[in-house]
């Protein structure tokens, strides 16, 4: 690209469109073949002086804004609130800092652009382009260099070196990839991922307790049309031991109650009841991509996912009635213990959560 400047020869005579012949200085491009408009600032000294003032004022105001920013930073308390029309009460500190800092930056830009537009040269100029393709000579030289290098390297002479090197290069990233295996350190008592995904911490006889408050749930205390967001009773202990939310991400359930005659079907084998007097318990984790669902519409018994709007009919085995989910929401078999509290009969008979490759394996 060293010849780019050749469009301008020092002292070259050019004829701009207005007919004036003038010599181009080195580093100056010839004007383009378009009509050049003179600006007010080019002809009117007053307009020019005004533009100069405007630019300088903007730069000066920017500096003032920086000062105001520092004042705001020091003087405005964190919790002070200011009410702005149409927006409402907002943090005085945040808005003051945003406006002063923002304007300080903005004014520099505005000043620079105003300067460029009003005062800097607005003569459109032409620079020549050169094709991207290198010249024949250059290409030939490059090819020659390559040939010389190839010969000197003995690359072609000893194919065994070439092949072994390529093989080695192909294999050498493998250790890095293999090292990624322990992104998951598999505990000794844990099987394959799919086996893990199939089970939850629900066990036979385990009580259902309310989420957040961990109170056991008496069956006769759930009203018809009621909804309880529930978890296993040992969830709190499990979470304290594990220091993660993994158990919750699979075991969360919703308990709903409808009139027994409204239940059209359950996931239990024909003629058996996995509920208790109209109380049914389902997984809360969507079978689509795993959002927790408890948008239960008590009159239609529909359960809606807020993420992708899969809809399940809880009165009909939680089958999918709308949306992208394919599998129904797994039902947790429940019964009542001696004291009248809801307990699980077993873990979920079907895997909870999103589908995966091995999910339908027996």
């Amino acid at each position: 690209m060293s010849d780019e400047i050749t469009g301008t020869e020092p002292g070259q005579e050019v004829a701009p469109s207005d007919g004036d012949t003038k010599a181009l200085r080195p580093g100056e491009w010839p004007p383009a073949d378009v009509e050049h408009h003179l600006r007010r600032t080019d002809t009117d000294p007053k307009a020019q002086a005004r533009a100069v003032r405007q630019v300088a004022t903007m730069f000066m105001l920017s500096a003032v804004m920086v000062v105001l920013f520092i004042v705001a930073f020091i003087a405005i308390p964190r919790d002070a609130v200011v009410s702005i029309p149409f927006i409402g009460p907002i943090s005085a500190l945040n808005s003051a800092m945003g406006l002063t800092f923002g304007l300080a930056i903005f004014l520099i830009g505005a000043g620079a652009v105003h300067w460029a537009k009003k005062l800097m040269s607005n003569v459109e100029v032409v620079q020549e382009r050169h094709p991207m393709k290198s010249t024949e000579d250059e290409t030939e030289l490059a090819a020659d260099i390559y040939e010389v290098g190839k010969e000197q390297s003995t690359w072609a002479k000893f194919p065994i070196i070439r092949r072994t090197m390529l093989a080695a290069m192909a294999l050498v990233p493998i250790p890095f990839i293999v090292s990624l295996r322990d992104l998951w350190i598999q505990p000794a008592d844990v099987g394959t991922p799919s086996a893990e995904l199939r089970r939850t911490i629900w066990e036979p006889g385990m009580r259902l307790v309310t989420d957040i408050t961990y109170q056991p749930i008496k069956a006769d205390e759930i009203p018809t049309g009621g909804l309880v967001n529930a978890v296993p009773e040992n969830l709190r202990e499990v979470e304290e031991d594990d220091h993660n939310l993994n158990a919750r991400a699979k075991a969360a359930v919703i308990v709903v109650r409808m009139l027994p005659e409204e239940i059209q079907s359950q996931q239990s084998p024909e003629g058996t009841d996995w509920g208790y007097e109209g109380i049914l318990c389902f997984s809360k984790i969507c079978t689509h991509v795993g959002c927790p669902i408890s948008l239960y519409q008590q009159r239609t018994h529909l359960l809606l996912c807020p993420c992708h709007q899969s809809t399940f009919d809880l009165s009909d085995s939680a089958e999918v009635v709308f949306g992208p989910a394919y599998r129904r929401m797994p039902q947790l078999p429940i019964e009542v213990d001696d004291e009248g509290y809801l307990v699980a009969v077993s873990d979920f008979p079907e895997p909870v959560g999103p589908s995966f490759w091995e999910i339908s394996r027996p």
Partner: protein
Amino acid sequence: MKSLAKHRRHPAAVLVVIMLGLLLTGGLYAAANTATEARSVEADALLIEEGKRLFLEGCSSCHGLAGQGSDNGPSLIGVGAAAVDFQVGTGRMPLANFGAQAPSKAVEYTDEQIRAIAAFVASLAPGPSIPSAEDLDFTGVDVARGGELFRANCSQCHQAAGRGGALSNGQYAPNLMKTTPEHIWEAMLTGPQQMPVFADTTLPPQDKKEIISYIESIRASDDPGGWALGRFGPVTEGLFVWIGGMLLAVILAVWIGAKVR
């Protein structure tokens, strides 16, 4: 008289006077109490009577003459005063037209009348009652726990900021920003329309208090960052950055590129 006067310095005299005084005031109190009770029963009866009249006028065409329900409206037996206060008090009832869901609108009855209808419906069968002043006393309530309960039980439908959300088939969980604590309480208790029932047994009054005080706190809270765009989250933010932000940036670019005269 003389003998009495003679005995007035007797130590027992004080006791007797006190006893007498107690008897008298006790009797008076008892008498007055029966009177108020009688009056309140009478007033209740009147209120129920008035409620019945209003009910027959405005509600019975759908809910049946005895609140037993019809094809056009559910039975109101056992829904309690709370349901009436919520449905009528938020303008959802009487229904303007049959749609996917009864929207809240201008209230058609006075507070007095609503209380009357509520009393009538409550007289049909026992049901949840209107929360007491004590229920709605939120002093010293743990707002943060209310937040946890809100996110566990409410935000899935009503959105994390209580701005409401869509349900299936044109139904929706309403925006909570203008709902009074009383009505929120009643809604939880009675489960209006598609909303599930959160009875006091599964969601104790203390939990309800905490939830309502959390809703109140986010309703009253400022948006420190500025204009909240409705607190709807990324959808409105995305619209803003296209319509507001990018438009301004393009205007600036046009300004830079524009020819100067």
